[in-house]
């Protein structure tokens, strides 16, 4: 049999300080990106409200500047034109009247008037029109966040029931870490947050949670088996034991994500990109966030394991056998 990382014995927990430091740096980069750039997060029309038209030019070869002039002549304010593919453009605009929901339809009309001027009627094809009032987008955003937030409590309760509240809390903290870092990633990469990207973030939440639980499950099992070992050792051993599984699962997940990124077309690509990052941060947080957080919780509130024996204790030493307190 082919085996990878068969008898690995890396001191993952020993790296936790450096890992947390790396997280803080990534987080800072993200926050700076959000401060420097406006808007901080590049929300798509679905969330901000406004009008978006995706067109394919069938005849002629207008430059972006031509398109812009034509659109501005059709009384559109500051139209944003993004090339999307060969002779394909995404146009985002608002009319002088503003982002009034009742005007979204008017804006779409103005865009086609502008295109008629430049390209000529019938020389382009409208592939996609979105006109969204700001209220709808806001609702979408708040509800998605509310759903994630509430599901955290439910997961916490489930893990508290199946494991212990410490495990649940650590898993939720790790997942929260992933969401924050993914948002930073989205900000740094200027990925437009569309519904597809929201789907990616939601997938990422599930994926990261899975990963943490698989490791925690092993920790729980090893704690039962070796009651005398220090928590740090148990955790290191558990992570190492699940390493082959982690590597293989991440490989298959990354394989499908690569396929999506390469062949899935421009609409799906942001999904693949965000989820790609999600696989890495999810793995990272399971090892370097979830486990240390569990360690910290155990240090502060030493728990009693399934057989009534105290686990954890002081966490100053990362090596050697520390007898349970």
């Amino acid at each position: 049999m082919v085996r990878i990382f068969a008898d690995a014995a890396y001191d993952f927990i020993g790296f936790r300080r450096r890992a947390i430091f790396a997280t803080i740096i990534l987080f800072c980069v993200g926050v700076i990106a959000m401060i420097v750039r406006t808007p901080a997060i590049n929300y798509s029309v679905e969330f901000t409200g406004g009008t978006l038209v995706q067109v394919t030019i069938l005849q002629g070869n207008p430059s972006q500047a031509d398109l812009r002039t034509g659109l501005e002549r059709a009384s559109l304010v500051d139209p944003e034109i993004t090339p999307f593919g060969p002779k394909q453009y995404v146009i985002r605009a608002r009319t002088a009247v503003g982002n009034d929901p009742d005007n979204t339809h008017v804006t779409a009309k103005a865009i086609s008037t502008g295109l008629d001027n430049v390209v000529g009627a019938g020389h382009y094809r409208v592939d996609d029109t979105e006109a969204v009032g700001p209220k709808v987008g806001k609702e979408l955003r708040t509800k998605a966040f509310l759903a994630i937030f509430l599901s955290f409590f439910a997961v916490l309760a489930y893990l508290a029931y199946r494991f212990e509240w410490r495990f649940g809390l650590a898993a939720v903290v790790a997942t929260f870490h992933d969401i924050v870092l993914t948002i930073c990633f989205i900000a740094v990469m200027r990925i437009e947050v569309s519904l597809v990207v929201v789907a990616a973030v939601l997938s990422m939440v599930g994926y990261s949670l899975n990963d943490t639980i698989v490791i925690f499950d092993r920790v729980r099992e090893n704690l039962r088996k070796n009651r005398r070992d220090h928590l740090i050792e148990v955790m290191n051993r558990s992570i190492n034991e699940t390493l082959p599984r982690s590597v293989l699962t991440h490989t298959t997940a990354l394989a499908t994500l690569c396929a999506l990124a390469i062949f899935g077309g421009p609409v799906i690509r942001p999904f693949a990109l965000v989820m790609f990052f999600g696989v890495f941060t999810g793995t990272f947080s399971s090892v370097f966030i979830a486990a240390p957080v569990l360690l910290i919780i155990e240090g502060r509130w030493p728990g009693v394991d399934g057989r009534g024996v105290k686990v954890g204790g002081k966490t100053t030493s990362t090596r050697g056998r520390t007898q349970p307190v």
Partner: protein
Amino acid sequence: MLSTIRNRMILIGLLILASIIYLIPRNVTVRQRDAQGGLHDVQHRQVPIKYGLDLQGGMHLSLGLDTTVKKVSDPANAIDLALIVLRKRIDDFGVAEPLIQKLGNDQIVVELPGLTEPDRAIGIVQSQAFLEFRLTDKTGALDAALPQMDRALTRLGIKGTGPAPKASGVAALLGSDTSKKGTLKSDSGKKTHADSVASDTTTAQAILSSLIHPASDIGVQALPGEYAVLETAYNRVDTLLNIPDVKRLWPRGVEFKWSQDPISVGTQSYRMLYALSDKAIVDGSHLTHAAAQIDPLTQKRVVTFTLDRSGGRIFGAETGRHVGDYMAIVLNNKVQGPPPVIESQINQNGQIELGNRSLADAQDLALTLSAGALPVPLKVLDERQVGASLGADSIHDGMVAGLVGTLMVIIIMVGYYRWSGVLAVAALGLYVLFTLAGLAAVQATLTLPGLAGLVLSVGIAVDANVLIFERIREELIAGRSVRVAVDEGFKHAMNAIVDSNVSTVVTALFLFQFGTGPVKGFAVTLIMGIAASMVTAVFVTKTFFLLWLQRRPTATTLSI
């Protein structure tokens, strides 16, 4: 053990059978409108997984109550009523598989797949269809009131925009009108009043009267109560007429309504203003049926209608009393075409002339009329149109990505786990089958994020098998026999599989409960995938292993 395996195989067989039944393409009856405008029921075969609008192209609208126009005391009830009206209208409009549903308590979502005329769709959805028949005012009441209105405006300090009219012109204009009125009604009291008013106009600016012309002035055959206003002055006149001080001077029993469309005379475009009786003869609530037709005599588009019995009785009595008068057809507060003369008593059946408007317009009017009026006007909150080609591209790209991704997963699994990997791949095939069947069973709609999620799930679904296989390997390395290793491997991996899947389902349930449309759909896909993965990775693979062990009871090695 043999019987256990048989039972397991039977169960798997039943699941596969059920999945295939759910996924068999079936005949769907769809109402469609052909080029001539007739409605037909069309049958076509399709796999019972619905594509979302982003995948098949079409139009998405979310609608909310427009409370700026009309205050609503019970929004939830108003939405329910609007939903019924919309269903009927869209059904008559002939769109294949429309989706019309309530979102929360104050929104309606309408999805019209394959629709290519968005403006028409919005027209149908938003149209009020508030129909009334009203007599035009033949007393010249506006002529009489105009000078007073002008004085009121002058008092308010509002300046006219056009050149000051010649006083004589105004006097002549009013004079001719009042004399006509005199012959019509011989209402001498009113005449003297109007005359005295006319003599006063010299002191006031003719603000309104310079903008409102009798229809005869622009060379149109004059009907009683019909006036022409330059299209450019339409907004101004409307504003001026509705200034409270002016509105108070509206003649008693008269209301003003504008024509639906402007008319062109020479190079100028005019909007017609009608003075109408403030009481409707009947309104659309009495209407039972309406249909679009072409008038065989004039070749013009007409909408014929039928009233209910009580409506017909009132209509007959009123039209009988007013033969020779003109009757305006008012739809959503706009007068449709020139008011026709009542030639004889009209009972339950009548027709509305639409002049030169298209047959499509006539059809739309007919169906909004027969479907009834919306309780409260609706406004479009969110509108999305996807071209069919974009959707087809997305499906194609998604399929290619899915196939390539699956192929890579197969290579990785078989390369790493050998024969056991083949078992896992077989289970993965069933995973895809079960997930699609599950989606078909709950009639879920496959959207673009859902498609991406589905492709990714193939990569993640093998996780359960990986967990199990790694456990079996550990047991084998620890020196257990093949049979014991397989049993122990499944047993130990179960905790991790159950806990991680249940946590994800819990998250998905919250997404379903609190998320909006697309997020909800995502949650459904997620739950289906997890259920299918649990069944295939745990139950199906274990059955395969049992089969394998049963054939070779003395096996000492396992290809894993």
